């Protein structure tokens, strides 16, 4: 019989999660990070015109927001821009990623680096640049949907497509080229290789990157602010203009809706990126 000894649990050298003070510190950081957002969501249900003291639960500001025509229009604009710019930037991004993966050409590394420019450039500069650009080319003002949003859509594509390229390019880097050789050896043409081998392999990355492009477009304020006219504002721009007349729970309600859409999309992205691991 082995005599029972009192087990002394000691932390292993890499078990940081078991260190107590680190745990509390982490919780503190979480509170600091998320308190304002949680506060915003809670006060969207506040039954008070002024957002300072809690006066009881209500959903009337959601109804109010839903009946605010310009707010709804701006929300509709935001979604239209996000959808259209996502589709176009995904297509361009996919083609660029495949091109970068498949072909070697002169100055390829510099081209890959240049993709980072829209990501690292200060948004305010990008916004101003877009404003000047559309002015200098005398971009026509359209009145029909979705052409009235064309300036914002173009601006959004320009900063979201590099993300698509980078994500798909990274995924393609993991694709074993022997699989392509094997499929060609079995008689596949380029199109069949793409349809049955390459595309299924990059599909999770493709969906994740297009969702990212969607969120980036939906979230963007600065660049949109510079490229939108008085009749085609988006939800973030509308919220900003509303704030100038005082913060009402209606703004909280509109912001909450935006946050929820973004959170759902993010959860989808994370799930899809994890799905990649299962395939290996």
């Amino acid at each position, binding site marked *: 019989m082995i005599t029972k000894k009192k087990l002394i649990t000691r932390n292993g050298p890499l078990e940081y999660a078991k260190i107590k003070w680190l745990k509390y510190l982490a919780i503190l950081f979480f509170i600091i990070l998320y308190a304002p957002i949680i506060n915003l969501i809670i006060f969207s249900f506040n039954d008070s015109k002024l957002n300072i003291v809690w006066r009881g639960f209500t959903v009337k500001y959601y109804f109010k927001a839903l009946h605010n025509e310009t707010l709804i229009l701006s929300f509709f604009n935001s979604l239209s821009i996000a959808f259209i710019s996502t589709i176009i930037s995904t297509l361009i991004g996919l083609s660029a990623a495949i091109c970068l993966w498949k072909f070697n050409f002169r100055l390829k590394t510099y081209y890959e680096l240049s993709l980072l420019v829209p990501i690292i450039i200060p948004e305010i500069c990008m916004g101003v640049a877009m404003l000047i650009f559309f002015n200098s080319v005398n971009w026509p003002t359209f009145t029909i949907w979705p052409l009235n949003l064309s300036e914002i859509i173009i601006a959004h594509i320009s900063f979201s497509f590099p993300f698509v390229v980078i994500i798909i390019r990274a995924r393609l880097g993991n694709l*074993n080229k*022997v*699989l392509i*050789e*094997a*499929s*060609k*050896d*079995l*008689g*596949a*043409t380029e199109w*069949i290789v793409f349809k*049955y*081998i390459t595309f*299924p*392999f990059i599909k999770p990355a493709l969906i994740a990157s297009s969702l990212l492009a969607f969120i980036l477009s939906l979230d963007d304020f600065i660049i949109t602010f510079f490229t939108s006219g008085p009749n085609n504002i988006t939800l973030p721009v509308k919220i900003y203009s509303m704030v100038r007349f005082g913060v009402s729970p209606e703004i909280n309600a509109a912001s909450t809706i935006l946050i929820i859409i973004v959170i759902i999309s993010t959860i989808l992205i994370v799930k899809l990126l994890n799905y990649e691991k299962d*395939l*290996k």
Partner: protein
Amino acid sequence: MTNKKNKLLSPCIRINNLTKYFGKSVAVKNISLDIYKDEFFAILGPSGCGKTTLLRLIAGLEVQETGEIYISNTDYSNSPPNIRPVNMVFQSYALFPHMTVRKNIEFGLKIDGLNKKIIESKVTEVLHLVKMYDHIDKYPNQLSGGQKQRVALARAITKNPDVILLDEPLSALDANLRREMQIELSNLQKSLGITFVLVTHDQDEALSIASRIAVMNEGEIVEVSSPDEIYESPKDIFTAKFIGKINILEGKIKKIDDTFVYETIDYGLINIPTNKNNPNSFTIGIRPEKISVRKTCSSKQDDISVKGEIIEWNYYGNINYLIVKTSNNSDLYVHMQNKTKSSIKDLKKEPFIWLTFNVKDLMIIKKNTTQRT
């Protein structure tokens, strides 16, 4: 040495003056080769000798600088891989990870546009053939190495190509499984009647399953022969050294009365059989297992005996790998079977032993090839 019967047949694969460069280094150097129908042909060589490149050239996965490739009398020199009547089994198996075993095998058949019933029956048939039918709905990551190997093989067989190319297919398997698969591959080739071309760096593998072997070194084919020819009477010193252990007997050639005599310090004068077309400059070698270890000197005719001391023992259960220092300070490799339980114990008692070999077992090897190791 290709036998005459084969030469009358038209080759299944004919390669003419094939050359392939990678940048400045040459991977395949002006190779011409005929591979006949129903052969199990092995391309054997050390790593980096260009054997895999040669195979990939046949498959169309690489494009040659010069030369032609004919498969079943059709010129496929400039054809893309998808129209060549060959299928490859890749070293890493290259099974499609997002498809089940069934889908993997169907892939090539669907491209051919066969109807569903034929595809279904072909898949069933080929999976029974490689004993993988029970795993038909599994994904490749649920299979072991040997099972993946079988699926990869099935996928190549199912398109019924003129040639199946195997790129070191067994190198990732453990020793026992490898032996098992070697036998199965060999049986499969016989029953299917498809030409197999196997690339390997494993001498035993090539010797045991191939009907003909091409030995490659530094982008060139050194020798093409049957396994026993290549092992027992190699024509090139590189082949002799690569295909197995060999003892080179140092000495000089002398010509006395139309017969060649090989003068050695250790073994005296050795008469070389004259019936062979001996090259002008040659060296003499003997395989370690042709040397027997005895306690006494042999007095038989054509036997050569030399006294020596065992300086290294390597015990492998059934066999002993010995290094013996002869009285003239040259080392000989000797492989000795453990024929009795006490054979080692008896031998270890002896202060010195006699090594005996027969003149008929000596190999006469061309010497004037470029210096290789």
